[in-house]
């Protein structure tokens, strides 16, 4: 079978979606098919560009190219999943979130700041309602994404979990004296919330942040907050780290802190569980809540500095408890039987 994986993104920015597309392609090929990724550049600003890109996707014909028939298309991201194909399956990573649940989010909302934001939002929603059902099947990344799709678009779908890239290579190491927070640095991931939490911790908690800021201003804001709160000796910015280094940071951490806003899925949670580490997340963090069992595989805090500080203090002072939770997390992951074979079977059946 010849399979095209359709996604969209920002050139030169690489994140979870790009890793997932690569992993999916590899898994499809490993199953004996041919697969390629078609990644369309996407620009969301100004909003008037968005309908243009939606139309561009609709006008793409990928049923065959140069007499080569494309047997299956897998759409991952907006607006790439709008590309028509008679055998299209959507595996929805997320819809265009600022047209939905992040519309009026104080930090992440973007369309809301433009005069034509509301009508572009409605155009996006209308296109999703119209074109998503064209797919022969709709899967999503998580229950959280399925819930949103049902709530906002009235479309049913099935969650289809996938493992993090290089899952077998994650390992357990001795618990060090830091929490690990790997993620892109932006307001939705809420590094700032953890920094504020550190300022009210009773224990001398330390955090290592890994990942690149979406822009320089966001990194500068975080750095400034650390300086102003006099936390320089308790915060480390590792920047972009290699996969190997990342796995080591997981392995040698006391636990993982990951409090994003309504995360679609959250590989960080799964990677922590594979590394036998407890996860501190928030009650509004979305995807991680599908895996973190409060007080068993991690702690679920309120999205306040005080509540996150309490959780970090709790594990910092209770290292044995942290280790027990980490082990429980790994067992829970294994029980879920999350693997690529299952994903490929579903998407290509």
């Amino acid at each position, binding site marked *: 079978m010849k399979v095209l994986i359709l996604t969209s993104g920002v050139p030169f920015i690489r994140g979870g979606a790009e890793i997932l597309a690569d992993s999916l392609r590899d898994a499809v090929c490993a199953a004996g098919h041919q697969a390629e990724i078609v990644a369309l550049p996407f620009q969301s600003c100004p909003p008037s560009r968005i309908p243009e890109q939606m139309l561009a996707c609709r*006008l793409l014909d990928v049923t065959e190219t140069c007499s080569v028939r494309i047997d299956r298309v897998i759409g991952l991201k907006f607006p790439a999943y709008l590309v028509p194909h008679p055998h299209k399956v959507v595996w929805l990573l997320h819809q265009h979130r600022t047209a939905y649940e992040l519309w009026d989010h104080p930090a992440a909302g973007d369309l809301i700041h433009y005069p034509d934001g509301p009508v572009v939002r*409605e155009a996006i929603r209308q296109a999703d309602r119209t074109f998503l059902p064209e797919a022969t099947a709709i899967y999503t990344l998580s229950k959280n994404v399925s819930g949103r799709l049902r709530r906002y678009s009235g479309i049913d779908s099935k969650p289809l979990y996938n493992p993090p890239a290089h899952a077998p290579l994650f390992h357990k190491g001795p618990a060090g004296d830091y929490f690990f927070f790997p993620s892109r640095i932006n307001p939705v991931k809420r590094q700032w919330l953890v920094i504020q939490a550190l300022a009210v911790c009773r224990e001398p908690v330390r955090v290592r942040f890994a990942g690149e800021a979406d822009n320089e201003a966001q990194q500068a804001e975080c750095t400034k907050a650390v300086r102003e709160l006099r936390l320089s000796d308790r915060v480390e910015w590792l920047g972009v780290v290699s996969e190997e280094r990342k796995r080591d940071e997981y392995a040698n951490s006391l636990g993982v802190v990951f409090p994003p806003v309504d995360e679609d899925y959250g590989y960080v949670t799964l990677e922590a569980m594979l590394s036998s580490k407890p996860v501190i997340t928030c009650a509004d963090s979305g995807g991680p809540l599908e895996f973190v069992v409060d007080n068993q595989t991690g702690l679920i805090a309120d999205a306040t500095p005080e509540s996150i500080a309490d959780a970090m203090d709790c594990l910092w002072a209770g290292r044995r408890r942290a280790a027990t939770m980490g082990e429980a997390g790994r067992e829970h992951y294994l029980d879920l039987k999350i693997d690529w074979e299952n994903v490929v079977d579903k998407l290509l059946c």
Partner: protein
Amino acid sequence: MLKINWFSPLPPAHSGIAQNYAMQILPVLARRHQVILWTDQDSVAPEVERIARVARYDPANPPWRALNDADVAIYHLGNHGGIHGGMWQVSRQHPGIIVLHDLCLHDFFAMVFLRTLEKPDAYLAVLQRWYGAEGRRAGEAFRTGGMGAETMAQRFPLTREAARAALGVVTHSHRTLTELGETPACPVAALDHPFAPAGDLPYQGWLAVRRSTPSPPYRLVVFGYLSRNRRLDSVLEALAGIPERDQFRLNICGQLWDESHIRAEIERLGLGPLVNLHGFLPEGQVEEQLSTAHLAINLRFPSMGEASGSQLQFYNYGLPTLVTRTGWYASLPEDTTVFVRPEHEVEDIQAHLRAFLADPGAFLAMGERGRQSLRNHDPGKYVDALVEFASAALNFAPRIPALDLARSIGGDLAEWLHPAAGGYLLERASQEIFKMCAGKISRSRPEGPV
């Protein structure tokens, strides 16, 4: 309950929309929905702030984030460029419901583009957009004095320009936009202009005053914003031309478009002792004038297509009225008003004045029937219909970017593709654009009264 951004003139603005329409609608609307009153006026009367929260905006830099917190914006546009200019500037960027208080809006756009914004090229461009080269040439002639404002308003009303980014358009006239040749690309509803009549007790008081002065001189009243199309010249000429003129006193109440001209005409026609110019009247003096008047003269020609809040005010006071048989006025009940033919203006006014002198009682009865007709203008029903229409029109939001996209694609293709080669691509693009708004256009409400 909707959260509504409301853009209209508000008291103390010298506008019937502010003084009458808004003040009758807003208390009802604010009781049923969450309303924010946006204004760029220098001041807003304290009684307005008691109805709903007043928020200020700069038309050059509107607070989009705050505006986007509401479900829908409702803009009120009329021909006064100074009063409506700011809200139009917001409306063309931030789609909402446009309530048209005038249907012919050339005067408005001429004032905004040529005087306020000083953008003559933009003025000519909008004429070109809707009326092609002919519109552009007419605009050039208008700028150099070669074509009059009234002709421009009738031939190039520019109503579609006002509705260009609208989710829906509301009119108060049964004269349809289609009839005017100005059907916009959005749903249209014609609602009866709202009016809350005063209670029976004051009304009976006004009637008693009017009945107690059954002998000449009879008080005629002209009222409202008195632009050129209010035909004051004809009224003065008609009055001056009848021997019975001393049996009337004409009270002109409202802001005049050219006061010195009217004063000169009064002087020329020797009407000085018979005519009083009162200027814009505060609410208390309106009652004094209208409750003691015997006959109102409410002419329009050419009509800008508007419904007249003044006319409903006359009905409220039980005043018989002379109106022009044109536009919305032509649809008024025959037994509540007397009609003046545009082409026989002076002659008809004089005939009606003589008829009044012959049988004032018949005119009094006509005014009382006018008062009864206000039952069709209940503000509560109007608010419900307006909000229902606005809620339905929100479904059409995806069409706005779709239309922009269609214009953009069409323009692009025309630049680089031969029409013969572009046909297939245009068809595919238009099909997909149509699908993006998912056939919503076909559910458009037929134009007509709601």
